[in-house]
C-alpha cells in the first residue's frame, strides 16, 4: 500500500529514533505518549491511513440533508446523509482558501456554504456554486478551464455495519466487513442486534494521550483493582468469570464478564489481600442494578474495541459507543453516545438511563479511568526513553480465557506498530 496516491510522503518511524528500542510489543517508550512528531506521524499514517474510523450512528442522521460535524483523528469532517439516502463524509475545509465550511454541530441543510466567499457544496461535498465565477462585467473571474468538478471538498469513503458508520481516507483500506473480521463482527452482531436510537451524549476532556485510553479499554487487569464500586457494594465482580476475544490483527479486542457468585468473589479478594476487598456495604437504592438481561446478551459487561477509536460498551443494561478523539499529544476527548434499541419499551429505556450512572464522566465504574491515565501523563515527563512494562500474561498476544492478562494491550500495539512502521 502507498500513501503516495494522496500526494503524501511515505515516511516511516526511523528505528532507534522515534521507534521502539526493542522488538515486540510488551513495552512501549513513554515518548509515544507525548511526542509531537509521533503524534503527527500517527495522524498521517494511522488516522488518515488504511483504517476505518467510527464517526456516527446511522440513526443519528436519518433524513436526507441531516449532517453532523465530527473528527477523524483531529481532522474536522462532516458526515452527511445525501439526497439518495447514502451517507457521505468529507473534510470540513473549503476547497477555496481552507475555511471551515460547516459551522454547526449538527442539523439539516440542502447545501453546505462556506461563509468566507460563499463557495457552496452539495450533500456529497461536490462544489456546486462559485460567486463571480465569470467575473464582473467581463473582468476578473476564473479562467475558462476552471471546473467545479476539480474543486470539491476532500471526500472520505464511508461504510456502515450494524448501524455504525465508519470513514476512511485510505484508498487501500480493505472493505469494512473484512477490516472488522469475523471475531469483531460476531460481537457487534450481538450488541447491535437490532436498530438503535441515541439517548444522549456525554463528553469528557482528558489530559492524556489517546493511546493511554486505547490501552485502558483493552486492560482487563485494572477493572477490579482501580474500580472499587462493585467490590465495595458487594456486586459480582469481573476478575475471573470472564474472557478475552481478539481478532488476528490484534487491534480489535473484546473483554467480557459473566456473573459469578458473591462467595467466589469474596474468596478471590481475600486470597489476594488486595485493597479492593472491603466488608460489603449495600446500596440504599438497589434499583440501580435491577435491570433484566437482554435476551440476546449473556454477559454482565462487554467492552469491545474496534481499532483505532471505537469502543462499544455494554455494562449491565447500559449501552453506548465511545469515540476517542485525539486533541494533540497530551489531550483527548471521549464522546459517548448512549443508545437503546428502537423497539424498547419505556421501562427498559428507564433502566438504561438509570444504569448510565455506571459509565461516563460520573460513572460509578468508569470515572477512575480518565484520572488513572492522567496520572500516567503527569508522571512520564522527561521519561521518553523509559518504557512501560506490559508483560502480564506473557509477552505475546495469545487468546486467553483469563482476565489476568495484558494481551489485548499488546494486540493494540502490534496493530499500531505495524501501521506506523510498515510500508503502506
Amino acid at each position, binding site marked *: 500500500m502507498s500513501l503516495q496516491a494522496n500526494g503524501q510522503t511515505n515516511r516511516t518511524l526511523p528505528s532507534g529514533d522515534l521507534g521502539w528500542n526493542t522488538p515486540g510489543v510488551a513495552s512501549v517508550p513513554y515518548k509515544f505518549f507525548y511526542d509531537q512528531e509521533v503524534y503527527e506521524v500517527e495522524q498521517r499514517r494511522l488516522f488518515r491511513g488504511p483504517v476505518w474510523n467510527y464517526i456516527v450512528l446511522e440513526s443519528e442522521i436519518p433524513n436526507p440533508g441531516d449532517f453532523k460535524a465530527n473528527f477523524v483523528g483531529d481532522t474536522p469532517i462532516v458526515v452527511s446523509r445525501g439526497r439518495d439516502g447514502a451517507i457521505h463524509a468529507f473534510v470540513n475545509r473549503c476547497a477555496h482558501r481552507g475555511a471551515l465550511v460547516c459551522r454547526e454541530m449538527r442539523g439539516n441543510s440542502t447545501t453546505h456554504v462556506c461563509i468566507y466567499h460563499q463557495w457552496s457544496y452539495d450533500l456529497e461535498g461536490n462544489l456546486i456554486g462559485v460567486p463571480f465565477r465569470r467575473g464582473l462585467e467581463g473582468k476578473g473571474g476564473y479562467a475558462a478551464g476552471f471546473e467545479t468538478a476539480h474543486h470539491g471538498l476532500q471526500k472520505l469513503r464511508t461504510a456502515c455495519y450494524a448501524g455504525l458508520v465508519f470513514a476512511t481516507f485510505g484508498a487501500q483500506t480493505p472493505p469494512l466487513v473484512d477490516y472488522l473480521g469475523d471475531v469483531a463482527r460476531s460481537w457487534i452482531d450481538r450488541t447491535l442486534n437490532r436498530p438503535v436510537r441515541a439517548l*444522549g*451524549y*456525554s463528553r469528557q*476532556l482528558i489530559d492524556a494521550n489517546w493511546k493511554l485510553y486505547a490501552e485502558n479499554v483493552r486492560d482487563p487487569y485494572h477493572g477490579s483493582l482501580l474500580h472499587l464500586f462493585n467490590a*465495595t457494594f458487594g456486586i459480582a465482580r469481573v476478575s475471573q468469570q470472564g474472557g478475552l476475544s481478539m481478532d488476528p490483527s490484534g487491534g480489535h479486542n473484546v473483554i467480557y464478564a459473566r456473573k459469578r457468585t458473591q462467595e467466589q468473589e469474596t474468596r478471590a479478594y481475600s486470597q489476594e489481600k488486595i485493597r479492593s476487598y472491603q466488608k460489603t*456495604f449495600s446500596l*440504599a437504592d438497589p434499583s440501580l442494578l435491577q435491570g433484566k438481561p437482554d435476551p440476546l446478551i449473556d454477559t454482565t459487561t462487554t467492552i469491545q474495541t474496534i481499532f483505532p477509536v471505537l469502543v462499544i460498551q455494554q455494562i449491565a443494561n447500559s449501552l453506548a459507543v465511545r469515540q476517542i478523539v485525539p486533541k494533540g499529544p497530551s489531550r483527548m476527548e471521549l464522546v459517548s453516545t448512549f443508545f437503546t434499541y428502537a423497539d424498547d419499551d419505556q421501562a427498559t429505556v428507564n433502566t438504561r*438511563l438509570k444504569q448510565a450512572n455506571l459509565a461516563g464522566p*460520573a460513572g460509578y465504574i468508569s470515572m477512575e479511568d480518565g*484520572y488513572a491515565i492522567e496520572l500516567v501523563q503527569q508522571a512520564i515527563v522527561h521519561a521518553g526513553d523509559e518504557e512501560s512494562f506490559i508483560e502480564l500474561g506473557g509477552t505475546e498476544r495469545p487468546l486467553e480465557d483469563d482476565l489476568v492478562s495484558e494481551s489485548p494491550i499488546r494486540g493494540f500495539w502490534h496493530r499500531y506498530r505495524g501501521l506506523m512502521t510498515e510500508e503502506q
Partner: protein
Amino acid sequence: MAADDGHSRQVVEELLAAYVTAIDDGDLERWPEFFTADCVYRIVPRENDSLNLPLAVMSCNSQAALTDRIAAYRKANLFAPHAYRHMLGPVRVTGEDKLEIGARTNYAVFRTALDPIDYGTSEVFSVGEYRDRIVIVDGLARFREKTVVVDTCKIHTLLATPL
C-alpha cells in the same frame, strides 16, 4: 405561599445558599438532606436537553440513591483531590402554588485542584442552570426535583462531586 411578596424567592435563596455551602465545605453527608425522600436529581448536559434527549451524566431517583452516591464517593470512587466553589445568579421563581415552588437559577462552579501536580489551580469547571421544584416538608424547604442543566457538557476529566 403567597405570590409576589418575594417570600418564595427568599425560601429558594436560603435553600440554595445552604445547599452550595454544604457542597463547597465538603460536607457531602448533608447533601441528601436537602432533598425529599422521593426526589429526582439529574445532571443533564445542555446538549441533550436541547435535543430532547433524556440522558443524564448523573441521575438519582430517590434520596437513597443520593446517599449511595456519597457512600461511593467516600468508599469506592477515586479522583484527584479538589474543592468546589459555587457562584449563584439571581433566583427566578417560575411558578408556585400551595404545594410547590418552581425556580431557575444560574450557577458557576470553580474547581480548585488539590493534587500535587496542579495544586491551587482553579478552573471554570461547570456553568449552567438549576431547575428546581421545591416543597416544604415539616417546615423545611426541600428539593423535590433538581435538574442541573450543564452548559459545560465537555466535562474536564470527571465529575465526582455533585453540582
